[in-house]
């Protein structure tokens, strides 16, 4: 049981580390990594707490949710990376342009 | 008896893992570190696998453990070659002491 708490709290830490980086860092690859780390943190919370069943066998439902989430995260990462590359080849930039397109 | 042999093997494996890591940290250039990686860790894994094989519940499990070792052996052999040739192509000359 202790591991559940430790790792769930780690998940919380990951979420906030990722959030901080997502806001502060400007390179897009870094932002993509940050989002992945946020997702990992959430998955850790979601499936980590699944392991606190009295029987010891983790609750399968959150596990299935995390599996779904992981695949979605991979899909999103792939799309984001492709967008980043397209942006790079179109503008030469790897960061977001701040002017709102005006 | 089998258990204690297993423990010995596992401990020996762990020692080689440690050696590999220390080598990774202490060796001066990429090529020397490759030595540490490929040799020590594979031996370490081999010994750990051997130790666990002694505890395995079935023949198939033994085989599976062995396959895992072989695969990692192939992987690190290949990886070391790839990395070494990458380093060469990109002009990293070896450290000569």
């Amino acid at each position, binding site marked *: 049981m202790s591991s559940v708490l430790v790792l769930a709290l780690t998940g919380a830490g990951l979420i906030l580390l990722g*959030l901080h980086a997502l806001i502060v860092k400007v390179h897009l690859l870094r932002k993509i990594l940050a989002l992945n780390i946020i997702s990992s943190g959430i998955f850790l919370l979601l499936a980590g707490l699944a392991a606190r069943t009295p029987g010891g066998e983790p609750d399968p439902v959150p596990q299935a949710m995390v599996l779904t989430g992981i695949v979605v995260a991979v899909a999103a990462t792939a799309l984001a990376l492709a967008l980043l590359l397209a942006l790079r080849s*179109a503008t030469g930039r790897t960061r977001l342009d701040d002017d709102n397109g005006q | 008896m089998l258990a204690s042999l297993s423990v010995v093997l596992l401990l020996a494996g762990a020692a080689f893992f440690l050696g590999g890591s220390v080598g990774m940290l202490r060796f001066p250039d990429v090529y020397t570190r490759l030595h540490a990686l490929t040799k020590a860790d594979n031996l370490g894994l081999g010994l750990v696998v051997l130790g666990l094989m002694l505890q395995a519940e079935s023949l198939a499990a033994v085989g599976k453990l062995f396959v895992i070792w072989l695969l990692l052996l192939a992987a690190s052999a290949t990886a070391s070659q790839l990395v070494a040739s990458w380093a060469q192509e990109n002009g990293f000359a070896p450290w000569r002491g």
Partner: protein
Amino acid sequence: MLPSGAVWTAALVFTPLLAALACFLAPRAANWIGLLAAGLTTLAAATMVPTLMTDGPLRIAVGGWGAPLGIDLYADGLSAVLLLMTAVVGLGVSAFAPAYFGAHPQQRPWFWPLWLILWAALNGLYLSADLFNLYVMLELLGLSAAALTALSGGGPALNAAMRYLLVSLLGSAAYLLGVALLYHAHATVDIALLGARIEPGMLANAALAVMFAGLMLKTALFPFHFWLPPAHAGAPAPVSALLSALVIKGSFYLLLRLWLDLFGDLSRLLPELIGLLGAVAVLWGALQALQQQRLKLMIAYSTVAQIGYLFLAFPLAGGLNGTTAWRAVVYLALAHGLAKAAMFLSAGALLRFAHHDRIADLDRAVHRLPLTLTAFVLAGVSIMGLPPSGGFVGKWLLLEAAFQQDRWGLAVVVLLGGVLAAAYVFKVVGYAFTPTAIAQEAESVPLSMQWSALLLALGAILLGFAAPLLLPLLDVGAPFEPIVGMPS
């Protein structure tokens, strides 16, 4: 006990989804497949209405398992009106798209599958009663929307799409965090069950905070709106229409559902805060729209303002006749959907016509492109909330609720927002009457593009007369009444 509900649901979600696959497999036939799918989906949405009116809300257990083990689908009046709006706008955009992408043939084979998946996601979103399933829908929605935004290529569009994608992913991540907390607290992700089990406390507040933060980010409520204008302005016109008219509504709907079914009683302060943000959005967005030199950006900022209206209901909902406030904003959402789609489509037609969208250089577009300008103005009428239009009905109801509760500030915001909207809409119209110094080259615009915009705009106007039909439909299942006990 024919599973008629299952059939509708299957049709509403799977028709566009499978059509997207078909478009992906046979890109050459994409136009026809897409139009066919749009027609069928609209038909499904329309035929669902009488079922709902006679049988009441639908609850379908996917796979027959039922909540909490399985996923439940749920359709009440609120879902139905949004499904209908999506269908109408979707049909209009689908009719617009073939001619539009005729000039951009390299984008066409990608537009159709992406758009149809987006449609499936929206329909799925409106039909789902399962928080995690809704998360998947949100992701499906967000990814397809971001990909569509990038469709036209080019630096600004890609930049906007990237920002949109990041925001969207962050938003759904926050939402998922809330789902995780709720699941572990109450061992279900079914909205109805959760509504019965949830109790005020730190956990519920935490879930509320993260879920609302995420969804507000996705809905682009001020000050989270920063990503919206470049994305909605940079995308191809039909995509802009979809983004502004539909995608935003998806996350707003979810927000509304969560509030109504789960979180409504938790906080006194939060609705006031949300209302305040909405009010600032109304004014700030409209002022920004007024300052824009480009038509599409102006329309995009107008969306920022219009989103603000949707949030004005939160502070009103708790008071006397709060239901009126909910009805009002749902009506506003519907009207905005139709009108904003029409506006973006007409902007697309203007863009095709003049090859630019500088407002000051519209060069007698009124004479040269009368249908499109009519569409723009009619849509503008609804956006301004002038009678007789859907926007007027929504605004009237909202004002009614505000006046009944003596919320003068909100009433003033609603009214002022309308004035500002008139200012930016008629700024465009005025320039469309005047010639520019140098007469401009113009390209002819296919009629299907012009008419689809016009019909959508007419829809926004006719919505003003549809309240006696739509409001009873909206009340099916009493979405705005607090849940009492468990729905069987």
